[in-house]
Structure formats: C-alpha cells, structure tokens
C-alpha cells in the first residue's frame, strides 16, 4: 500500500489538461474521432450516424481507503460489448486526497443513435506513484477498488442539462454494504476544431494563505456551460512557496475552451496536501479577453467572493498574460488532401505454420472450388482500404518464410516472382501474385519479420533524401507466431524514427499476445538489444477474427492508429501540409 500515508504529493501537484504531450506520443483519451475512417466512409456516401460526445466526471462521498489521508481517486470508463466483456474507453487523471473529486480529463465516446451503449464506470483509489506516469499505464489490479456504476449513454443525452448522477455500488470487501457514494456525468458534444492557444500566465502579489510559509498557488481554469454548470478544463502545476508565481505555458484546444468568447472561470488556489485547496482569488475572462490583456500588457485583479456584504472583494493579486499564441493543428486529412502520399507495401506469411496448402484446414488452402482462403479474404478486405488511400495503386509485395527456387529460405522475396521490381498493380495484382507464389514457393519457416521491416524502412529512408512528402505503411499478413522477437523488435526500433507505420494483420486463431506486445498500446516503449528505445509507436495489430465476428469493421481496425502515428511523425518535425503557411 505504497503511498497510503499522504498519497503521491508530487503527482497531485502536476499540471492536468493544459500540457502539451511529448510530441511523439500518440495517446489520447479519444476513442471516437478518427479522420481516416470517416473520410473512407464519407467517400462512399456513408455518413457517420454518430456524434462525438465528451464526458466530464465527478464523484461525491467516496469511501476512504487510505489510512492517514483520503483516497486518491481515478475513474475508468468501459463500454460493455455484445459478448458482455468490458472494453476500456478511457481514464481520468488521479486527484490527490479527495472524496469529492471533480476530474479534469474528459473521456470522448461516439454516441451512436441506433444502438444501446452501456457504459460502465469503475472508480479506483490509486496507491502507486503516478507523478509523470501516463495514466494509461497504471495497473488497475494494484489499486484499491472504490465502486462501480452503470448507465446507458442515450439516457444521459436525453436528460435535461445532459447530466446525470448515479449511485456507486460494488463489493469492496469486508462484507459490509455501505454507501459508496455517487458519480455524476456531464455530456457535451465535441467541436472538431484545429485552433490551439498557448499562453504564459503568471501572477503577482498573491495573498498568503499558509501559516509558516508562503502559499503554493496553482490556477484552475473552468468553462461555464449553460445553466451555470462549471466544467473544469485544466489546471496548472503547483509552484511552491511563491506569491509571484510563473507557471509553465498552458496549451488549450478549442475543444477545451469552447469558443474565443466563452467565459472562462480562472481560480487561483493554494495547494494543500490534505486535498482541501484554499481559494486565493478568481476572475472570469474569455480567451479573447486574455488575448487583449496580453497585447495591451494589462493585468487583471483577482476577486474574492464575499458572502456577507454581497460585494466581491477586489484583491491586490493580479493575473498577467505574458505570451499568447494561436496555432493551427492540422489534422490527418489536411495532410493527405494537400498532397502527402501514402504508400502501402504488403508482406505475406509463407511459413509452414499455416498448414499445407493442399489440406482444407490450412490458412493457405488452395480451394479448387474457388472459395477464398483466410489470406485471400484478408487481402481483399484490407486491399479495399489501401487502394483508397494509395492513389497510384502500385504496391511492393513480398513474401517471407518460403523456400525459393535456389533452395534457400528467403525472408523477403518478391511475391510477383520477378527478379527485379517488386511492385504489383492493385488488389488484383496482389491476389494473382499471391496465387502464383503459392504454387511455386513451398512453405518453410521460421517466421521472421525483421527482413521485411528492414526493407520497408529502407524504402522509407530513401524518400527522406528526395524531399517529397511521403508516408509508408507496411502491411504484414501473418498467422501470428513469431520466432525471433528480439530481431523484430530491433528492426522496429530502428525504423521508429522514419515515416513508416507497420500494420500487422493476424489471420487464424492463434494466440496473438506477442503481437499485442509489439503494438505497445499499454504505454511500454519497445527497446532494442543495443539500448535504443523506440522513438514512437509505429506498430498496430489487427486480428482478423475480431473483424469477422463483427465486432469492429476492417476499416476501423486498420486505420485506428494510423492518423495518430502519422501525426506524431509530422508534428514533432514541424512538417506542415504541402502548401500550408508555416506557423
């Protein structure tokens, strides 16, 4: 029970909501918005039948699971799938020492009008350290369970004010049924916008609220939604012992502040490790007004709400905006439609673990009746997507693990059988090359990805010197069991700084835990044997059996992480869409 005495104080002091993430990270709490998928469907005339909803959570009267302090709660939101299993959608941040937390991090979900979406919330008391640890990587099994609640999304949306309070229930042990508190939800529609505002804020002459030292001030910015509901948007980090604090730059998206004229409540509070932060002063300004303050070099005085006289007390403490920049964050579609080329490459698994092509149970079964085998089905389905995004329809196609005519096992041979030139044209090209290769190349092994990844990385690095904007995607269609994990990880780490993504499509029914390890979704970065760590996550794993069971469409599965991986490459290098003005 590591930090049950006072909680992770450093974690409680960190900034939430207004911080720019590590440029190469792709983690978002956004399980819904995917440009690439939307564009694909819209081009076929299928308009999305859902809208993006953002949920703000808060709880009250939580039970106390820490000994000498209060619980440090965090909420996790799940969606209940058709088979009853829970799929995690997102998590809030951890709040220090509070039994009535109002979480700042929002969770986004797509509200589909025609299906019943059951949301399940679990609230935990975080006992492990969480300072500078991405919330996604916190292991839930190590935390204390505080309760759970269930509701249906459409119910929240149809209530007045779109907010709802539900009771927490659950088995927290000790056999005692006691009240576990309530959870409140506030739903709002999200605005797709690209404007990002960065401000440098500081204060002078703040009041001293601490007894033996000076205040530890931090700012909390909230948005005023209709009917005076206050939704916290971000908080800065805590500056210790300082009455003239300078905070690190705060970065807000239009998603967070609504519009430039929406009034924002800016509160300056004194941090206390007990969790009861004292209000030093507050002010209400919109983003446009803050911009004016910056340009005209004015300061705004904080105000302390007074109950007795009915008039607020104007304090000496002032808020100053030093720097105000409005930036545009381009989306994946902006880049693609401006001329950024997406180039796909395909690699097919020819190892013996697929089974002898003459037996009907093999994944490579050459059915005389013409029925497609698993590989052909996978190629057809992914082919539709890649043809859409790769405009010239020329794909380098390779096979690996097969025994080529010279008797050696090759881990990257041309699927079309040519000695020079590995390209095929269109999905039909891949299919015919595959059929030909199947009759001519006996299956062998072992399963190694490193050679095809190196080939793809080589192609990607060639484009760097040409200075033309291209991004490469390698599709590896495999039956799943990797022989050389270390070699594959080394090849992936070497390629992690290139404009390349690797999508691994898993066919068959094997256990794909190795692939999920490579996908690094739990936040753990891949590390090579030479000590180099992957710059970014470039792998995504798509199990075809989930696609075929109808749980997710192939388009969604394939393109899920691609926009994020693409943006992590271009943004950290400040590459803008072709022809766009430089920021």
């Amino acid at each position, binding site marked *: 029970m590591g930090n049950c005495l006072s909680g992770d104080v450093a974690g409680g002091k960190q900034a939430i909501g207004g911080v720019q993430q590590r440029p190469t990270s792709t983690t978002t709490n956004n399980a819904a918005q995917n440009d690439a998928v939307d564009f694909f469907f819209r081009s076929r005339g299928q308009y999305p039948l859902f809208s993006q909803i953002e949920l703000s959570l808060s709880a009250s009267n939580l039970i106390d699971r820490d000994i000498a302090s209060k619980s440090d709660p965090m909420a996790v939101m799940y969606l209940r799938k058709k088979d009853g299993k829970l799929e995690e959608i997102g998590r809030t941040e951890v709040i220090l020492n509070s039994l009535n937390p109002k979480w700042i991090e929002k969770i986004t979900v797509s509200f589909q009008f025609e299906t019943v979406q059951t949301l399940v919330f679990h609230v935990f008391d975080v006992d492990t350290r969480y*300072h500078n640890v991405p919330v996604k990587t916190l292991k839930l099994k190590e935390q204390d369970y505080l309760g759970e609640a269930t509701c249906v999304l459409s119910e929240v949306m149809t209530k007045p004010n779109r907010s709802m309070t539900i009771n927490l229930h659950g088995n927290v042990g000790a056999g005692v049924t006691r009240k576990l508190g309530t959870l409140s939800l506030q739903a709002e529609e999200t605005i797709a916008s690209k404007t990002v505002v960065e401000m440098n804020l500081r204060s002078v002459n703040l009041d001293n609220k601490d007894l033996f030292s000076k205040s530890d001030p931090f700012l909390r910015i909230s948005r005023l939604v209709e009917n005076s509901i206050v939704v916290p948007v971000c908080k800065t980090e805590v500056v210790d012992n300082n009455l003239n604090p300078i905070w690190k730059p705060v970065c807000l998206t239009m998603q967070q502040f609504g519009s430039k004229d929406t009034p924002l409540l800016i509160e300056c509070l004194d941090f206390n490790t007990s969790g009861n932060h004292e209000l030093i002063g507050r002010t209400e300004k919109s983003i446009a007004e803050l911009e004016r303050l910056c340009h005209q070099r004015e300061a705004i005085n904080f105000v302390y709400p007074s109950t007795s006289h009915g008039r607020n007390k104007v304090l000496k403490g002032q808020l100053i905006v030093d720097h105000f920049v409005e930036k545009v964050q381009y989306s994946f579609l902006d880049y693609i439609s401006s001329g950024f080329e997406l180039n796909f490459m395909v690699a097919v698994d020819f190892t013996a673990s697929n089974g002898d092509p003459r037996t009907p149970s093999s994944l490579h079964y050459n059915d005389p009746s013409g029925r497609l085998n698993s590989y052909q089905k996978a190629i057809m389905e992914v082919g539709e997507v890649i043809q859409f995004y790769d405009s010239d329809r*020329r794909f380098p196609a390779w096979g690996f693990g097969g025994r080529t005519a010279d008797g050696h096992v090759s881990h990257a*041979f041309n699927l079309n059988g040519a000695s020079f*030139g590995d390209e095929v044209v269109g999905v039909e090209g891949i299919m015919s090359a595959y059929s030909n290769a199947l009759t001519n*190349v006996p299956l062998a092994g072992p399963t190694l990805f490193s050679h095809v990844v*190196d080939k793809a990385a*080589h192609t*990607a690095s060639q484009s760097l*010197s040409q200075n033309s904007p291209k991004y490469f995607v390698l599709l590896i269609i495999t039956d799943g069991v990797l022989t050389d994990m270390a070699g594959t990880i080394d090849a992936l780490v070497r390629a992690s700084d290139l404009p390349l993504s690797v999508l691994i499509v898993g066919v068959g029914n094997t256990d794909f835990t190795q692939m999920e390890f490579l996908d690094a979704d739990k936040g753990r970065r891949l590390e090579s044997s030479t000590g180099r760590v992957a710059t970014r996550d470039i792998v995504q794993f798509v199990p075809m059996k989930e696609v075929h069971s109808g749980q997710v469409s192939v388009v969604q599965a394939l393109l899920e992480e691609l926009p994020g991986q693409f943006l992590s490459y271009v943004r950290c290098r400040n590459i803008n869409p072709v022809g766009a003005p430089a920021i």
Partner: protein
Amino acid sequence: MYILIQKQLMIYIRRTDHPRLYTPIMTKTLEIDVRSAEGLKLNRRLLNKKTFAVVRIGEKSRTSHLDVSRGSSPTWDYKLEMPINVSVQFIYVEVWYRTSSGREKKIGEAKIPTSDFMGRYSPEGHLNFLCYRLRDEFGDKCGIVNVSIMVKPNSTDELFKSSSKDYGACSSQVGTGPWRHRPEAPCVDGYGGRIVTGVPVWCVLQRPTIEIRVPRM
C-alpha cells in the same frame, strides 16, 4: 647509387603524396538537442533532484544547464553543436544530478552508436529523434534519455559525395514516370547480410540470378 638515390627520392615523394591519395580525417558538425529524460532512477527509486546532461564525443564534452524542477522527468532542450570525426563509433550522453551539498554525481549514461544518425537510414540534414536507455555504473537500467541529432550538411564537400551512404546511390536510380523502378541489389541493407531479394520463379528461360551476399559491414 644514383638509382638508389632516385628510389629514395621517389619514396619520399610518394610519402608526401599520401595525404592527397588517401582520405584525410573528416569532420562533420552535429547539431544535438538533448531534449529530456524520463523515469530517472537512483538506487531503483525515482529521482527527486536537480539534474543536468553532459554530451561527450571523444575527449570533448559539453554540459547543459541545470533543470530545477526536481523531477524524474526533467526537460532541458539543450541545443549544441559539436564537431565529430566520422571514424568515431559512439557518442555518449550522461545524466548527472546535484546533491543537496552541491556535489555532482552521475546517474547513468547512454551509448549512442553513430550509425544511428549517420549512414543507413539518415541522410544529412535529416532531423533524427532518438531515445536511449540510460544505464548506471553497474549496468542497471536507470531511465531513458530523448535526444535529437542532425548531421549538418556540408555542401562544400565534393570529395565525399561519391562515398556517401547507400541510399544516395539508390535514390539517383529512382526515376519518375509510370514505371518506378525500385532497385534491388545495389541497396545494401546493413542488418545481418542479406540474401537474395529477387526470386526467379519462372526459371524456364531466365538466366540464373546471381545471389548477391553482402558481408556484414
């Protein structure tokens, strides 16, 4: 005697010719940005002290400013330029902390092979974002350091254009137009010595393809 003297003279002349015949020591300039570190640990516990970074190439080293946020994930954004001899194989990035008494101690260091930012996948002028595992004096893991390194392109260097990295040779063969020929054999893939990339599946009328094995560099 005369002949001998001539020979000696010839030999002498040849010696002075050496610097022109063989390649002289080549120096490039690196633009290094030591951005940040994560998960810094001292004695297996997360660190809580002020830290700074040191970049060491050969005998030279440069030190960054101190990060006063006292966390285990400091941000420096320390930009510097350093010359590097192309024959150097590793550069080192060390992370140090300052104790409460003012002394400075090393947390760990990362050994960065120059092949990660020079050659193979990285053309000159390309910004490489790299991350490395820090290891302490006992070899234990003690964090990750994030750097970005760029080799400054030296356009006055005519001598070394031809001996530049392989991708340069390959990219010149890539033409425009309907048939984009992607060359196979000349592009050396340095990992582990490649085996044949072309497969003569229709071996009826083809001449046998020569298997090109490139030894590990």
